């Protein structure tokens, strides 16, 4: 088994903020998806959502407000999972509810620090 990081990206500015019901529906889909990974014993850490605002540090201590306003997509959250291979990890990622909202999932193998 290898460990993988899922990085969830989307263009959060373009996203319509839905009704309370739609938000609840989306939350449920996320929870169900993560639950199904956990049920397979493959969820290491369901991870976190990241707030939209942030900072970006550049060399020589230059700090700008971020994240990455010059590009549309930003990172919205992450999870840690286990899988036998990249292919299996990608299969799992295909079920991510964020994909139905125009987002993407970056799949990266982890090198334990």
């Amino acid at each position, binding site marked *: 088994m290898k460990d993988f990081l899922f990085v969830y990206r989307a263009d959060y500015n373009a996203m319509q903020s839905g009704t309370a019901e739609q938000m609840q529906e989306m939350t449920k889909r996320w929870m169900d998806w993560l639950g199904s990974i956990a049920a397979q014993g493959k969820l290491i850490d369901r991870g976190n959502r990241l707030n939209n605002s942030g900072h970006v540090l550049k060399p020589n201590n230059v700090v700008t407000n971020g994240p990455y306003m010059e590009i549309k997509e930003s990172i919205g959250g992450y999870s840690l999972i286990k899988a036998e291979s990249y292919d299996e990890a990608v299969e799992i990622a295909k079920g991510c509810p964020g994909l139905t909202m125009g987002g993407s999932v970056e799949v990266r*193998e982890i090198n334990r620090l």
Partner: protein
Amino acid sequence: MNEYMLIFRHEDGNRVASPQQIQAWMKQTMDWIGGIAAQNKFVQGNGLPFDDARVVQHDGVVTNGPFGEIKETIGGYIIVKADSADEAAEFAKGCPVLQGDGNTVEVRKIAKADGVH
């Protein structure tokens, strides 16, 4: 106290480093993280090798890196505890990744306890 994710962005993941450079960089990174852990502010972290990464797009298309719309590549991340974004940014300033021209560290507050991604 809040938690912040420091995301290491490398300008070009294909840039080749010598084994000596990698070793020196590893030591600097371990010392940097050790310094944060010694203040009891380290939560977790991981390195992300550049090879063989994939992106699953919203239309189900799977591509290899580079990722998103930028050629920048995430090389790893750590999560730290800090009272403010400024304190988290202070930690980020010590990150050895910033020695590479064009590299950046993104500092993002973790949204807690709302049960949503």
